[in-house]
């Protein structure tokens, strides 16, 4: 049987997933879908990675799929997902990716192919910033997205360190949301982003 045929079944699962009103069921369907993908990968002897990429494709093409911040010891400090995935899958992806990135040597290039995605990462002191983008996306501009985010954190916390992000994780999220939304750059001006955060901080003094 050709592999596209079981894909029809996936599609019906997927339709169910998309149409179902109940979020709880939706989550379950999604992980069923994911399992089904893994299973078929065995049965039809297709490499799992391309099925996973199909999986990502079904949930349409996002510029950035997710962003992870983790320490040199592999502790996750911040995670932002721009694709709907179940907690189980998120954990699996995180585990694999942290391992892969930590295993790389300092002088290596900042890009790597991982499954059917491209990983762009950069290390700042003890923290790794790591983004997953799609095959067609621009690696260098993503690298600078990371840098701009670091600049924003730096400016806000005043010479940021890992501890700032641990103790003020919610702020790190707020700044990220002002800068990136839905995986796309929302506001690239440093001034404007910080102004928005500043305003929010003023509100909380009241």
């Amino acid at each position: 049987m050709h592999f596209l045929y079981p894909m029809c079944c996936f599609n019906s699962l997927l339709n169910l997933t998309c149409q179902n009103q109940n979020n709880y069921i939706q989550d379950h369907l999604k992980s069923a879908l994911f399992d089904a993908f893994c299973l078929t990968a065995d049965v039809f002897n297709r490499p799992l990675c391309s099925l996973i990429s199909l999986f990502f494709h079904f949930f349409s093409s996002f510029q950035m799929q997710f962003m992870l911040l983790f320490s040199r010891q592999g502790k996750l400090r911040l995670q932002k997902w721009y694709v709907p995935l179940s907690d189980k899958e998120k954990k699996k992806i995180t585990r694999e990716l942290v391992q892969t990135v930590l295993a790389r040597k300092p002088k290596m290039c900042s890009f790597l192919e991982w499954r059917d995605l491209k990983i762009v990462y950069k290390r700042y002191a003890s923290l790794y910033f790591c983004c997953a983008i799609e095959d067609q996306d621009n690696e260098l501009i993503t690298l600078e997205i990371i840098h701009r985010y670091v600049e924003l954190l730096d400016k806000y916390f005043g010479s940021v360190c890992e501890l700032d992000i641990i103790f003020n994780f919610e702020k790190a999220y707020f700044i990220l949301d002002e800068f990136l939304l839905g995986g796309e750059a929302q506001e690239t001006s440093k001034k404007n982003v910080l102004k928005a955060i500043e305003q929010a901080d003023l509100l909380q003094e009241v």
Partner: protein
Amino acid sequence: MPTVSKGDGMRGLAVFISDIRNCKSKEAEIKRINKELANIRSKFKGDKALDGYSKKKYVCKLLFIFLLGHDIDFGHMEAVNLLSSNKYTEKQIGYLFISVLVNSNSDLIRLINNGIKNDLASRNPTFMNLALHCIANVGSREMAEAFAFEIPSILVAGDTMDSVKQSAALCLLRLNRTSPDLVPMGEWTARVVHLLNDQHLGVVTAATSLITTLAQKSPDDFKTSISLAVARLSRIVTSASIDLQDYTYYFVAAPWLSVKLLRLLQCYPPPEDAALRSRLTECLETILNKAQEPPKSKKVQHSNAKNAVLFEAISLIIHHDSEPTLLVRACNQLGQFLQHRETNLRYLALESMCTLASSEFSHEAVKTHIDTVINALKTERDVSVRQRAVDLLYAMCDRSNAKQIVAEMLSYLETADYSIREEIVLKVAILAEKYAVDYTWYVDTILNLIRVAGDYVSEEVWYRVIQIVINRDDVQGYAAKTVFEALQAPACHENLVKVGGYILGEFGNLIAGDSRSSPLVQFNLLHSKFHLCSVPTRALLLSAYIKFINLFPEVKATIQDVLRSDSQLRNADVELQQRAVEYLKLSCIASTDILATVLEEMPPFPERESSILAKLKKKKGPGKLPDIDDNRRNVNGSSEHSENTDTTSKASAHPFTDILNLNSTPSTGPNLLVDVFSDSSTSASVDVSEDNFSRFVCKNNGVIYENQLLQIGLKSEYRQNLGRIYVFYGNKTSTQFLSFSSFVTTSDILKSQLNVHAKTVDPVIEGGAQVQQILNIECVSDFIDAPVLNIQFRYGGTLQNIAVKLPVMLNKFFQPTEMTSQDFFQRWKQLGAPQQEVQKIFKAQHPMDTDVTKAKILGFGVALLDGVDPNPANFVGAGVIHTKSTQVGCLLRLEPNAQAQMYRLTLRTSRESVSQRLCELLGEQF
């Protein structure tokens, strides 16, 4: 800048985080967390109403615990309560909790949506932004349903604040991606395009992302964006570096926006308007020129941002593939990067050049960098960069440089990383075959490949070399000689033994004249490897031995002795034992003539796509492999290799299993051969395919059509007189289908009987992707014809036309009716008029299996009535056909006669045409 008071007064949170950090062990951490969870739970359950601050603090703690990787199953309600707080920080934490822990309680979704709704209506821009961020982060369908109508109006309203516009644009983008059907297109789309002209660059940045996504879906609706995007881009690239103030990033003007604009332009072909086109060309030239200017800053951020724009511009140039000068300039620029000291740039240059290599304008220019690339292969320290170099060598290979490239890849293979060896082996094998002028070189290359990386040589590779040797008589003698020599090595890879055994078994006679390779020497050589090999290889060797008996009668006795030995005749492996027994017997009883006939040389294999190519494509995933065999470089045009680009996994699904089994002929799939060549004819005249039509009479789902490019699957559901078919178009190739369209046609008669409405589909199907189309069907009155699905798309250079008869039959509109025996016979009698009954007696086409028959009748749509017919072997069914105009009751009876292998089918309905049609449909199913 406000100095951050740690924890913003949430002291409890800071203390908790410190506690966790001080935990010495995982157990201690879990203990601390459980203590905290118990504490929070009791606080939430307690009688005392919590104030907003405490609620915020506890919700924040829960969030922290979740982010540590623990499960959180409560606190959602408290988070939702925070949304209605009028304190900003409380609201903010509530939203954060919700967007991180997309909760699964449908009651809450309504409450969350309520909170969002209030904030959107608040007209307070900070609150509106929070709400929009939440929608964009969660992006669930419920939210799309609730807000997809409202957000466009926020986006285009004149009085909306810029920051809100930005959030609204990206929020809409997210909703459009998750639930495109819910985002209404309309009057706002035209106004969105004009946001490209907005004063505020942040708004333009956000809007460009949105427009790009929308333009990918419906390019025609957003065509006006081309000229606006070009104008904007032109203004940015010509601006002085300080003009854009804070949007200048390390002396590069608005790099993010530039990249996005260039991305948007890649949704379209080059502009038709000459002035616009030249303006765009100017922009691209300016970007290329800037790359040559001395850097304005030594910072890596400066060069990264500048080059990000440059690479995106090159992508656009490659996408347009129409300006030879730009393509060559792009190539030269990338050539410079190949030797850049930044690893990142070398990586990207190699990657980008791969796509350039496939353009006819720049292929030659890419080839000039061969030495640099080969050098990269040898000296790069990062395996991912070396991998890119391999890819590029593969993409730039043609007849002129194949020998050099293959030699370099082979030598690299000896030291290559294990993770990429198999892929390199496949690439070498493909290139060697594809560009072989003289096949002795090919044979040498493959044998070298096995020598250097035997473990990574997959079956497909050695099957293929045998296939080629068998098909080309000019190389057979050489192949025999070479494998014979290779086998002399004290340790050789099992794959070499396989190839050797097969080739000597077939062509050993060609070298038997030389006393150094006399039959006995050949046999002893092969047999010396026998005991070290695995079972399948031994089986192959046994077959080679019996072939030897035919080729060289003088070694017959020696071989018979070997076959007769206990280790063969009583081998524990059943396959080996059977071969030994049968071959021994065959050699004893068959005459020379019979032996010669049975063990004749293998006939040539049918030509088809190289199974190796299919394997490589499969390995790399769809769309990842540059098509090295497009028409442009089909230089030799020889029929040895089917120059077909499609990824039939079929080819690899049946690799040459027959190679191990000498008794079957090699032509496993004449149909495959036909497949490869059949598509050229499809564009000429379109025959309506109805091969699978009748298979859908009793089922609703399955594959209706498949060729080597496209697979069409259906999933249908019917209710009364309405039906809906989901059509899935799967692109089996690794290349895009362009201008894809599909529509349904009905004959003139059918038009009045059946309404079919087809939704439009995306004009582009990516390689390996699948798109869905929905057809809505209404049955007006009973009908005979079937609608036809017409598909048109561009694949490579040619327009493909496909027409498929859609399995919409009258019986699909059945509703089953259960009835008692008494009712049934009463109605049966009522329908007794001669024109109401149709009967058919026919021979069984399939085995007469009761369960299968039952399933088919149920699939036909009627209810199966038990205990109605006095003869339990007969089947009786009843149902009502629903059409818009009338309903037609229908009774059927099927009487199998197992002895005669015949059926009698009787149908009675109130309408003659219905009886007739149903009888035709069902009569062909058994």
